């Protein structure tokens, strides 16, 4: 953050990003029109319900999926327009941590083989002794002890928390500057979640790693990105982006408000006395049959006929650094 240039060119920027699936006749846009920037060393959390397009967005940013429209810029350059060599460099600079460490680690390989494969592949180590040394170093960073024993084990011999630490260690082998963590702690027991999150937080503090943290759990997003930002997605679009404290304590978009009011909290008095926002409908619209205008209007408690069901709202800055896609919030701002 000290360099002026890092302000001008964010590490990651996506513009009008969209991705469609299906045949030409039955196309659905899983991600519709997403734009945001993540400056170096920052955390952006992407939250939303299942099917809202957050994982697809993560894959588009990691370069695993090609966008149907829009662009993903890394250090100012469109990753699909750069030459092969730079694209390869991009793929090592951006690493993905998946939700399920059972599925993302090869069960036939030992932990040593899992960790050293990328080291040898990218010529990051000169010898076996060097590779071993690097493993010990990485295990120290992700808090896996005793490394000598664990390196000889297979994934099934590890606990869920240890497995997820191995995934993180593998991601770190190539010294990434950007990590996309997709529900990275959702499968881990609550008692060890926090230590995993702190470990990820240290990667940012000590090595300056930038994060896109994808989760459906708003409380986790709040904890992990308290000094970062949260973007809320709904049916393929971002409907609100704000710094975390204001997003969780003063949400602007009716959907964000409804989500936050619905979250059950681990505090009986707090959770039983929370003000609830009732929605007009329980049904999430189908991507094949989207409502006109604002995609949230059939459920929105503040729906205004003739406005919300006609014109889709754009994600606009509200003047205080927040971005909201809602006609009513914009109107309110204009009145204020």
């Amino acid at each position: 953050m000290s360099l002026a240039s890092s302000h001008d060119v964010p590490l990651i920027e996506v513009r009008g990003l969209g991705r469609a699936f299906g045949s030409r006749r039955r196309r659905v846009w899983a991600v519709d029109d997403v734009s945001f920037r993540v400056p170096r060393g920052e955390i952006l959390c992407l939250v939303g319900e299942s099917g809202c397009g957050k994982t697809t967005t993560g894959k588009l940013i990691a370069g695993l999926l090609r966008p149907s429209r829009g662009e993903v810029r890394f250090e100012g350059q469109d990753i699909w327009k750069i030459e092969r060599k730079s694209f390869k460099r991009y793929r090592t600079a951006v690493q993905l941590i998946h939700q399920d460490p059972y599925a993302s680690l090869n069960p036939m390989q030992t932990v040593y083989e899992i960790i050293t494969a990328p080291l040898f592949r990218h010529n990051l180590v000169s010898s076996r002794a060097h590779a071993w040394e690097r493993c010990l170093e990485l295990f120290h960073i992700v808090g896996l002890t005793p490394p000598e024993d664990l390196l000889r084990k297979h994934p099934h011999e590890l606990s869920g928390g240890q497995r997820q630490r191995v995934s993180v260690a593998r991601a770190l082998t190539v010294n990434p500057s950007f990590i996309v963590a997709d529900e990275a702690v959702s499968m881990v027991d609550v008692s060890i979640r926090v230590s995993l999150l702190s470990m990820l937080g240290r990667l940012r503090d000590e090595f300056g790693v930038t994060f896109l943290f994808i989760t459906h759990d708003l409380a986790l997003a709040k904890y992990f990105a308290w000094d970062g930002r949260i973007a809320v997605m709904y049916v393929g679009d971002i409907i609100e982006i704000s710094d975390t404290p204001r997003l969780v304590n003063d949400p602007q978009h009716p959907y964000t408000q409804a989500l936050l009011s619905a979250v059950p909290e681990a505090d009986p008095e707090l959770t039983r006395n929370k003000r609830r926002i009732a929605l007009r409908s329980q049904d999430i619209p189908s991507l094949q049959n989207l409502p006109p205008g604002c995609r949230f209007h059939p459920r929105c408690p503040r729906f205004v006929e003739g406005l919300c069901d006609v014109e889709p709202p754009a994600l606009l800055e509200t003047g205080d650094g927040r971005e909201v896609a809602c006609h009513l919030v914009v109107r309110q701002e204009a009145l204020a």
Partner: protein
Amino acid sequence: MEGTIVQQLPWSKGQAEEALLSVRDMWIEYQAARGAVKAVRGVDFDIFPGESMALIGESGCGKTTLGLGIIRLLVKTAEIVRGQVIYRRDGSAVDVRSMDEEQLRQFRWQDCAMVFQSALSAFNPVLRIRDQMYETVKAHRSASRAEVTEIAYPLLRRVQLEPERVLRAYPHELSGGMRQRVLIAMALLLNPPMIILDEPTTALDILTQRTIIDLLRALQSDFRFAMMFISHDLSLAAELANHVATMYAGCIVEYGTVNQIFYEPHHPYTLGLIKAVPTVTGDFQDLSSIAGSPPDLIDLPLGCKFHVRCPFATRRCEEEEPELMHIGPEHAAACFYTDEVERQADRAWEEIRNPQGAFA
């Protein structure tokens, strides 16, 4: 009836004879190649009519095994080694363990229904919901299809579903939240006095979770069934439970009212769980995780099973396993250092209520 007299638990809310279900000294083991997996080790509790009890704990602590053990739906490799499961209805008491197949079949669903964790695999994929409901009722009494439809309609409406559409649908045609609601409606078909719910909201989206929680609360006040729900999610307990039992390594390590468990925990494991879970509302709060991981249930450590991970542990904890001890009205904990834990819990809540976070 001989064999159905149970020992009174000092921390129980009332007389054991008034409880709907009393579980005493329940031990369940799985046979594995390496030896016996001691999944449930001496569990005692009572559930009273209309009550809602949460069984919370991490994966592998034995909570689902305990739930399945109560209705005797354990897999073949599991065995109830010891214990009583006394169920009382209309003034008579019966030990579920002594029931024959036919009695068991009646007991399940009519007396105690269970809503399983994975809503999709709980259905028969090739039967329409209408037929699943019909078969469920028919297994217990003679009923015509028209009769079952008549019962199903108001129930499905009660769980906010369109009966015409849902009854015609196959399970895969419904969303996760809808399936969960159909399962709840099916559990209520025979109006059972007790329902066991295994992770009823896990894997559901926030707004769907909210619907299920509010629905369960409303249904319980309408139908007055007792509810035992199994969850790793503390917030579900905070929402719905009157009483909470914390399980660790096969034992209940703390039992109390929902407020006691959350605001005055006396077991270091309960306290650890509370300090590990963030809330959405309010300021930043510092969290801490519990060091280490749950023990190997085949080769359990000596003494208190939590001592390896416990910040309060002393030499005594390594040698001696504390029993669940009565520490106040309706409150019990299995720890030698409950006073110290309580003091730290007070401090923890103090910090949560008045955070001095750097970001404030």
